[in-house]
Each structure stands twice: as C-alpha cells, then as structure tokens.
C-alpha cells in the first residue's frame, strides 16, 4: 500500500502538468484535481509513515548502486505534506487570480497555457527531491525545479521581472553545475551516487573534500545563502503572488534539504571545523542583513522577500550547532536538527500565507506600497489577521511553529556552549518583529479622506492564507507529532 502511495505522490503532479498542457487554456480544473489528489495521497502517506515507519522504493526494482532509491522517511513526508498543503492553497488561490476580474472566463494567452503546467512540474520536482536518495537524480530534479521556477518568475514579461528571472537563472545554473561537478567526482571515486551507499565512505580522499565543497557552494547559492542572496528579493517580489508563495516558501528549501541530506546522511567526517563555522557564520550574516534590508523596503512584497533571506539564514545554523570539534556529533545535535526542520516547515507555511496575503492586498488596492496601504485592515480584515498570525510564526512567538524552531535552536546553542548563535536567533526575532510591524501598522492606519477605495475580495479566497497561517501556528501547538517524525539525526 505505502509504496503505491509514494508512487502516486510522485507522479500525480506530473500527470497533472501533462494534462494541463494537453487541455491548453482550461488547465485550471485539471490543476485543482491534481492538487487535491496529491494532497490526499501525501497526507495519507504521512500517516502511514508515522505509524509504520519509512517507505522505500527501488525504481523499477533495480537496487542501488545500479538503480535509484526513493525513500519517504519522517522528514521527507513532513516536507511532502507541507508542500502539498501549500501547493493546494496556491492552486485554489490562482484559479481565481488567473481568470482575473477583468478578463472573465474566456481569457486566453500564454499565461493560462503555461502557468498550471509549470506550477505542477515544480511540485513534482520538489516531491522528487524530498524522496530521492540518488545524487544524480537529485540533480535532474533540481534542474526541473529551477527551470520551472525561473519561468514562473518571468511569466509577467515586464523588464524587471525578466531581469530578475535571468539573474535567478544564472545563479541557479552556476549552483547546479557546481553540484554536478561534485556528484561526478563522487561517482568517479566511489562508483555509486546513492546516499545510503556513500554513507561512511565520504571524506576519505582529497577529491571528496573538493566534491563536498563544490556541492555545498552550489547548493548554498541555490538556497540564497548570504552573500549569494542577491537574486532572491527581485525574483520573489517580481513573480506573480501565487508563484512567489511557492518560490519563497518551498524552492530554496529543496536545495537546503539536499544539503542537509548530503551532510548528515552521508556523514562527511573529514569536513573539519572550518566548513560548518563558515556556513553558520554566513547564515548569521543572512539573518542580520536580510532583516535590516527588510526594514528599509517600502513595498510589502519586497519586505516579505527580504524576510525570506533572513529566515533562510537560520537554517544554516544547524551546521555549527551539530558539528563539534571538527566531526559531526549526532548526540548533542538532535535539538538543532529538529529546530532546523521546524524552522523550514513553519517558515514555508507562514511565508506562503504572507505572499498570498500580499497578493490579495494587491488585488484589492492595486499596489503594495506601504505608505498607501492605510485602511487595508478595514477592507480585508481576514487577510490582515492571517498576515498577523503568519508574522507571529516568523517572529518566533508562542505558540507558533517558529517559536518551537527558535526554542530548539537556542537550546542547542546553549547545549553546545555557543551562546553567540542563540544571540543571533534572538536578535533575528526582534528584527522580524520590527520589519513585520511596519506593514501591519500601515494597514491598520485610518485612511485619509480622499484615499482610493479597495476592490472587493471574496472571503473564501481570504480563507486560503488564513488556513496556511493557522497551519504554521498548529505546527507549534501540536509539535509532538512532527517532532517524533523528524526523529533524531539520521
């Protein structure tokens, strides 16, 4: 049963994408059907894995090293399920966005012909990345995700968005090639690309160190780690809101997920103390730089996008927190591992909620400039409430998933005797409160006398970001289940 579920989770989005290309401009219903079916399969799979343990498939019954292994363990199903929840919300949001108020149901154009298929291909690629245990298969998955994501960034065809898409593409391509270089070196030295078979073998040769450095650098560039983050804010702020939600919430997590698998599944014990410290330091710099830049932005979507730079920074603290004295030490790292996964998942939910909120605000107000958002709270109360809930999670206030994440990271920092990392987490939370307060305050201000009105937005659409924000909160309220699924360090 469970292998079939895993097969469905992987193939349903792909079938949906092909179906959407086949039907042309009527792709919306196909996408909704594919999304709901995948969501059901992903949640069911998560329940099965929670009760019966991890599911593994050897593709075509060819076992590694010859074939490709797909494994849905605890962390994998958490990512699969979170992705399914976010994607379903985005698809439901986009059904109304793409037909648009002005164009009606007859709208034809490149957008309706391509958007659904690209979104579903991106989803399929993400699912592949979360379960594949083969480094080359992960490369193809990464490229599929990157090309679909780049196309979504540029889909509106304005000069700024095309420039953002190009910048993103260049970073993504450089990152992929560095990753591929590492994979080629690992295969040449070990005769396999299966993470399970590589485990324990890595780090014995100088070429492994080179491979690991290249792959880490490439994946860090794709995850927008400071200072490789310059592509992210214009890309995420320039894409249409439905795409931004996915790009900001999920796509950088995919490359980070591979990085975590590479470091902690394959256990490169020769990594030395420098690498983890460097990654952690850059992560800390990202938290501070991203937050400060978010404070300076005047547009809502740019604030949210820079916030992503900062929130992704936390995810790199796991490297110094887990590594002690040069070797990776799983014993003390469990809190850091779980904290990182909680941060990845709760940020995904909260950030997707925020971008959908921003999309609704733009639909209602026609822009997202802070100084002219006065009165938004009155026009879109549910949306602003959802934004506030999502903000609670990003700030790390109880009872949200973000709170659990930051608590675990701080705990790990003190366990490790490295209070500096805890300080970064606390400071990042304070800065998040500061930069998220600005749009909320702007929206709650009373409008001046001659302020333009707001277009109406259906309540059921406002419920979508609300559901995501509540999910981010629920991750903190019901943290025991996910925490158990995450397990300790692999």
């Amino acid at each position: 049963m469970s292998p079939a579920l895993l097969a469905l989770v992987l193939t349903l989005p792909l079938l949906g994408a092909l179906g959407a290309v086949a039907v042309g401009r009527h792709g919306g219903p196909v996408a909704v059907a594919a999304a709901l079916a995948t969501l059901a399969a992903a949640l069911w799979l998560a329940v099965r894995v929670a009760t019966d343990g991890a599911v593994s498939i050897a593709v075509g019954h060819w076992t590694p090293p010859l074939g490709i292994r797909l494994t849905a363990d605890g962390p994998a199903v958490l990512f699969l399920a979170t992705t399914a929840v976010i994607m379903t919300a985005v698809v439901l949001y986009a059904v109304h966005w793409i037909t648009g108020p002005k164009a009606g149901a007859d709208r034809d154009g490149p957008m309706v012909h391509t958007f659904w298929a690209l979104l579903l291909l991106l989803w399929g690629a993400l699912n592949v990345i979360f379960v594949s245990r083969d480094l080359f298969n992960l490369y193809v998955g990464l490229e599929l995700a990157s090309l679909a994501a780049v196309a979504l960034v540029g889909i509106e065809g304005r000069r700024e968005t095309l420039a953002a898409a190009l910048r993103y593409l260049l970073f993504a391509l450089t990152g992929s090639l560095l990753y591929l270089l590492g994979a080629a070196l690992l295969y040449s030295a070990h005769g396999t690309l299966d993470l399970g078979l590589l485990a324990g073998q890595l780090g014995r040769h100088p070429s492994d160190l080179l491979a690991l450095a290249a792959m880490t650098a490439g994946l860090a560039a794709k995850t927008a780690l400071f200072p490789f983050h310059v592509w992210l804010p214009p890309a995420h702020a320039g894409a249409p809101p439905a795409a931004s939600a996915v790009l900001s919430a999920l796509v950088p997590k995919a490359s980070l997920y591979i990085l975590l698998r590479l470091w902690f599944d394959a256990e490169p014990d020769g990594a030395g103390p420098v690498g983890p410290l460097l990654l952690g330091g850059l992560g800390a710099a990202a938290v501070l730089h991203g937050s400060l830049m978010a404070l300076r932005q005047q547009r809502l979507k740019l604030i949210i996008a820079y916030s992503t730079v900062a929130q992704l920074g936390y995810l790199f603290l796991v490297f110094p927190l887990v590594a002690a004295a040069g070797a990776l030490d799983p014993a003390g790292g469990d809190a850091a591992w779980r904290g990182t996964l909680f941060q990845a998942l709760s940020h995904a939910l909260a950030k997707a909620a925020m971008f959908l909120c921003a999309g609704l605000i733009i639909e209602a107000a026609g822009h997202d400039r802070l100084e002219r958002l006065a009165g938004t709270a009155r026009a879109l109360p549910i949306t602003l409430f959802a934004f506030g809930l999502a903000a609670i999670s990003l700030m790390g206030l109880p009872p949200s998933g973000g709170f659990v994440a930051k608590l675990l990271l701080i705990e790990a920092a003190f366990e490790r005797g490295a209070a500096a990392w805890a300080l970064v987490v606390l400071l990042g939370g304070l800065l998040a409160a500061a930069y998220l307060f600005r749009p909320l305050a702007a929206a709650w201000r009373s409008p001046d006398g001659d302020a333009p009105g707001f277009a109406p937005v259906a309540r059921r659409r406002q419920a979508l970001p609300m559901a995501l924000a509540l999910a981010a909160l629920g991750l903190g309220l019901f943290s025991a289940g996910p925490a158990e699924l995450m397990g300790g360090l692999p």
Partner: protein
Amino acid sequence: MNLPIWMPYALCGAGLIGLGLYGLLARPQLLRRILAFNVMGAGIFLLFGALARRGEIAYADPVPQAMIITGIVVAVSATALALALIVAHAGAGGGEGLPSDTPGGGKRDERGDDDARDDAGHDRRIPGRDRRRNEREGAAR
C-alpha cells in the same frame, strides 16, 4: 611518456570548468555567460567521461555515459530558456547585461573595455570614440 589516454581529456575538462566558471561569473554580456555555462558543463561532462575510462576493461562505463547524455539535454533546455529570456529582456528595453546589483551603483550605459570592443566589426555604430576605432579597423583592412 606513458600518459594514460584519459588523462589529457580529464585535465582539459578541469581547464574548461575553470574557464566556464570565470566566464559565468565575470563576463558582463548575458549571451556570453550562457556560452560560458555551456563550456563549464562540457568540462564537467568531459572530466566525468574521462574518469570513467580509467578502468582496465575495454569499454567505458555506460552509467556515466547515460548521465552525460541526460546532462547534455538538460543543458540545452536551460540554454534555450535562457536565450529566450535574454532576447525578451532586450525586447522589453533591457540591456545586453543585467543592471548592476546595487541600486544606483552602476549606470546602464556604462561599459567596460571588453564590451566596447565586443561589438567591433559588427553592425552597431557608436559615435565618438568608436569612430576612431572604425577608422583604425579600416586602416587594418
């Protein structure tokens, strides 16, 4: 000299990787960066394929070969998308390269030495100092 046959190709691959990486990071024109991307990709493939030829067996390992073919197709897909984006970007009023990262940091028409010469002999006519260049070229012919 007893160099194994794969060695020059592996070293060539290593050189291509460096060349491509440099071009990808440091060349200003988008088209050239896509060229560099392809050079770097080809270098990785060549290195991979050369290293797969090291064994004593008379034929090459088919697994890297299949991966390289997959990689070539992925590279051409990325190239096609990138080129279409570059043309669309220019069509929407963008430049040959991307605007500078820091806002207000770089002016749009500022050009480096390489770029000015990059168009030498092509159908673009730039007044001012470029006329001198045209004359110089005319003399050279």
